[in-house]
């Protein structure tokens, strides 16, 4: 299989969280674990123009992020058991039979994708709906999105169609893990590391 990746259109996403909930339903997740999370990045201020008028330039946009099944995953590098691994088809998955729940992968992933399930005592994470994709279907989150802001396809195709951008705040710069992710920026999009805005919904993610 070719390397798959996610496409996310930040112009379309309204932050409705249908993808997150569809995933939760399909993967039967409790309230503490989210395989897909919606980050709200917001900022802006009053600025004075030449005439002395104050105008606001506030902005807010959303990023729906799961695991990016990275080319250079931070999570697999550190895992002591090999439970977190990139499989032959390029999906980064956790072998729940081997994982000891040390949470080291969670410390390393800059996308907060591996999440510890206290009930199960080990790591859990988006598997890219591996079994669905193998059968030629799209992941649940992609199909659920009412705005058609998500897609999942061979990353080559996505990059040919939409470009290479994946370093939009609050995401980390793409050099760190080389995510298989393409983001369509919106008109307010700021680059990774930007500090003009802030994470507006820290308790939701």
């Amino acid at each position, binding site marked *: 299989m070719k390397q798959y990746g996610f496409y996310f259109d930040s112009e379309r996403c309204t932050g409705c969280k249908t993808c997150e909930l569809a995933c939760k339903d399909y993967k039967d997740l409790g309230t503490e674990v989210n395989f897909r999370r919606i980050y709200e990045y917001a900022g802006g201020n009053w600025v004075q123009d030449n005439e002395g008028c104050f105008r606001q330039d506030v902005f807010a946009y959303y990023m729906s992020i799961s695991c990016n099944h990275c080319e250079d995953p931070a999570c697999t590098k550190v895992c*002591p058991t*090999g439970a977190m691994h990139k499989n032959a088809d390029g999906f980064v998955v956790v072998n729940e039979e081997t994982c000891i729940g*040390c949470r080291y992968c969670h*410390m390393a992933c800059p*996308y907060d994708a591996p999440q510890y399930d206290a009930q199960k005592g080990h790591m859990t994470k988006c598997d890219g709906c591996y079994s669905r994709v193998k059968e030629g279907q799209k992941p649940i989150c992609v199909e659920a999105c009412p705005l058609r802001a998500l897609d999942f396809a061979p990353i080559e195709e996505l990059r040919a169609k939409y470009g290479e951008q994946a370093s939009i705040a*609050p995401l*980390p710069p793409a050099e760190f893990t080389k995510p298989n992710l393409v983001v369509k920026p919106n008109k307010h999009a700021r680059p990774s590391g930007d500090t003009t805005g802030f994470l507006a919904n820290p308790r939701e993610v």
Partner: protein
Amino acid sequence: MNGLHEWPLVIFTVLAQSAVGAWLIFTVILCRQGDEPRAYWNKVLFVPLLLLGAGFIASALHLGTPLRALNSLNRVGSSMLSNEIATGALFFGLAGVYWLWGLFGKMSRGLGKIWLILTALVGLAFMYMMNQVYHIATVPTWNTPLISWQFYLTVVIGGSALACGLLANFGDYQPRYTAVLYVLGTFLAAIIVIYQGFGLSQIHSSAQQAVALVPDFAVNQVIRLCLLAAAGMVLLKSKQPLLLSIAVILALFAEMIGRELFYSLHMTVGMA
């Protein structure tokens, strides 16, 4: 403080570092002066082993599935965490054998020396691995030389505090340098705190400011340094076993405050 949820790791790292530090000091003394009187050394050497054992138990508590703990050795060579556990277990084994040997049998001086030095080298490797575990490229607050300093200084401070306390009533065996090491370690630790305090304001992602993670950084470090100073005064002056034990506990506790701040500082270059 959000670093408190990592208390098993706080206990594990500080106890293991202090145990290894003390073992290194004992190694130098034993290699130079031999292990007479044996009965006393048997007691002294048991303490770092005990602390290390307690540390390992604490570290297992941090796992979600402790029954599978052995899986953590699957990636020795590639994962720093595997390396840490492997070298730590090896150190524990070698040190334990040396202690049992002293307890039950008579080992030749030469072999004993070689064994001690080998154990000490494995201990150093263990300390290196423990420090490397936290050098994760995506964690900007940890991936700095200051963190290595902090970790190695706990080896010096905790180790010399233990050695001072255990050897205080042991005639000529207490070398002057254990006290000097303690003072030097604490002094350097204070310097690191100053650099770290300033450095933190430079570290941020779009979602997180490093300084916001440790709002009580200054007051906690002040408490830590005061405790280290107070413990130091007792360790340098007193011969009272009870006072000495309290001083050692205070010194280790002070290092745990520092380690707690360290775990609180976890953030990544992204949203986590």
